[in-house]
């Protein structure tokens, strides 16, 4: 399964494509009278890196929350591996979640923060040696060795978000949902963390295979993803799916990448003008 993402979609065995990893069918969300999402149909294959791109406040975060099972769909449905959210058939269907803010608990050091999901899973305060080792491994994966006993106030914004990623990977999810994970960081830190994210996604130390990232940055979406779902605002609806069949790492100077970037930019401008 792991190598699936290395193959192009056409070469993947039919069985894996039969049930999309994540699928939404005519998904709609209303907050009272206000329609936030309208008839969203997504099909995300296992091993894919997809971006949900749209202008700020277009409802893409709401969409991610529905995918995560934190919000219920008003109409339509969400399926993970062909089943409702939370009822995943295999471990590969388990979800990890990274928010825009790191959301670390300020009274816990790095190790304790990363162990939080395990504590909540087992109940009580007891975590085993196995969990501790797993936590140290994840802290290593996000390159924070040596900061195990540091408190969030002693870490930079980028480091805090690394801790949040390590924490999300603790349950060894097959799918990682990220809501503008680096949106609050400066440009340089953001680029570094994007590279890190690709490295983690491609590394074999986790089960992580499918990645869904909400972003409003066109370069970020084009650099990172296999496909971009472009969303128009109020209510959010899917306007186009942009394929980026280019190998990574990608250089912005590449003509094909520049062409796609220009296309997405035009697309975004037309959406934003309407809004």
């Amino acid at each position, binding site marked *: 399964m792991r190598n699936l993402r290395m193959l192009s979609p056409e070469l993947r065995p039919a069985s894996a494509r039969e049930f999309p990893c994540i699928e939404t069918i005519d998904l709609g969300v209303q907050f009272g009278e206000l329609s936030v999402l309208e008839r969203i149909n997504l099909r995300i294959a296992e091993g894919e890196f997809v971006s949900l791109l749209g202008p700020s406040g277009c409802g893409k975060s709401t969409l991610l*929350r529905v995918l*995560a*099972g*934190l919000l219920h769909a008003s109409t339509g449905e969400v399926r993970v591996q062909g089943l409702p959210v939370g009822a995943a058939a295999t471990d590969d269907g388990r*979800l990890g*979640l990274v*928010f825009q*803010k790191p*959301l670390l*608990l*300020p*009274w816990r050091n790095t190790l304790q923060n990363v162990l*939080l*999901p395990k*504590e*909540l*899973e087992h*109940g009580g305060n007891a975590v085993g040696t196995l969990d501790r080792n797993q936590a140290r491994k994840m802290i290593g994966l996000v390159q924070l060795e040596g900061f195990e006993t540091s*408190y969030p*106030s002693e870490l930079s914004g980028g480091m805090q978000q690394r801790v949040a990623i390590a924490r999300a990977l603790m349950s060894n999810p097959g799918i990682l949902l990220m809501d503008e994970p680096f949106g609050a960081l400066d440009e340089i830190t953001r680029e570094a963390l994007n590279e890190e994210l690709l490295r983690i996604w491609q590394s074999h130390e986790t089960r992580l295979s499918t990645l869904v990232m909400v972003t409003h940055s066109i370069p970020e979406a084009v650099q990172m993803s296999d496909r971009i779902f472009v969303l128009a605002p109020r209510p959010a609806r899917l306007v186009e799916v942009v394929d980026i069949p280019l190998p990574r790492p990608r250089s912005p100077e590449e003509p094909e990448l520049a062409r796609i970037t220009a296309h997405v930019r035009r697309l975004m401008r037309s959406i934003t003008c309407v809004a």
Partner: protein
Amino acid sequence: MRRIGMAPVAFGIGLFAAWETAVRLFKIPTYLLPAPSTILSAADRALAGHLLMTFSEALAGFAIASAIAFGAAVVFLRSPVLERGLFPIAIAVKTTPLVAIAPLLVLWLGTGWWSKVAAAALICFFPVLVNTVRGLKAADQEYRELFRAFKADEWQEFRKLRLPFCLPYLFAALKISSSLAVVGAIVGEFVGATQGLGYLIMVSSAHLDTDILFSGIFASAIAGIVLFQAIGWFEKRTVFWQKGEVE
């Protein structure tokens, strides 16, 4: 840092020295303003007994009120109906001056220890209630979503999220109440008592024993400061991650 730490001590000593000098220089009669040295010599074992009595009343009232207020805040968190219904009553009790209620407490509970404890408790209750209610809701919606994503149950959310987020608010309230507790106990003693700093202050002022009166005032200040500092000591060790103050 150490220099700044010594500043209050230096200013305190300076103030008392100026006071002592002024009283001697202008020959101010003792019944108007006794010199610090005269006040100090009036501090005897009897004063210590009165101080201990008031301190124990304040401490007991403070502890009981804090426990009940915390419990009420937790109940309010779970039941918005109770919060909406009972909060106005709590405000009504708070806005009624303690001096107006104190005679009733003495009537119900007698002139002994318990009526003062009740007076202290009554004045401590509200700040702890209000701040704890606020503190238990201080964790952002996003943190609660995070806990929900990790499938935390309600008890885990309370224990590992709401409670730690509440602690700075709780300690801010405990600091306010700790000094109010002494006020409550003394007001209780004013109404009817045979012991305690409130009793000492009433009796000595009636007899124009102003030096004893002052010793009582200082002793009550000490009682408040000791309580306040003790809470501050616990706060530093418990809420180690909080840099700024929460009001």
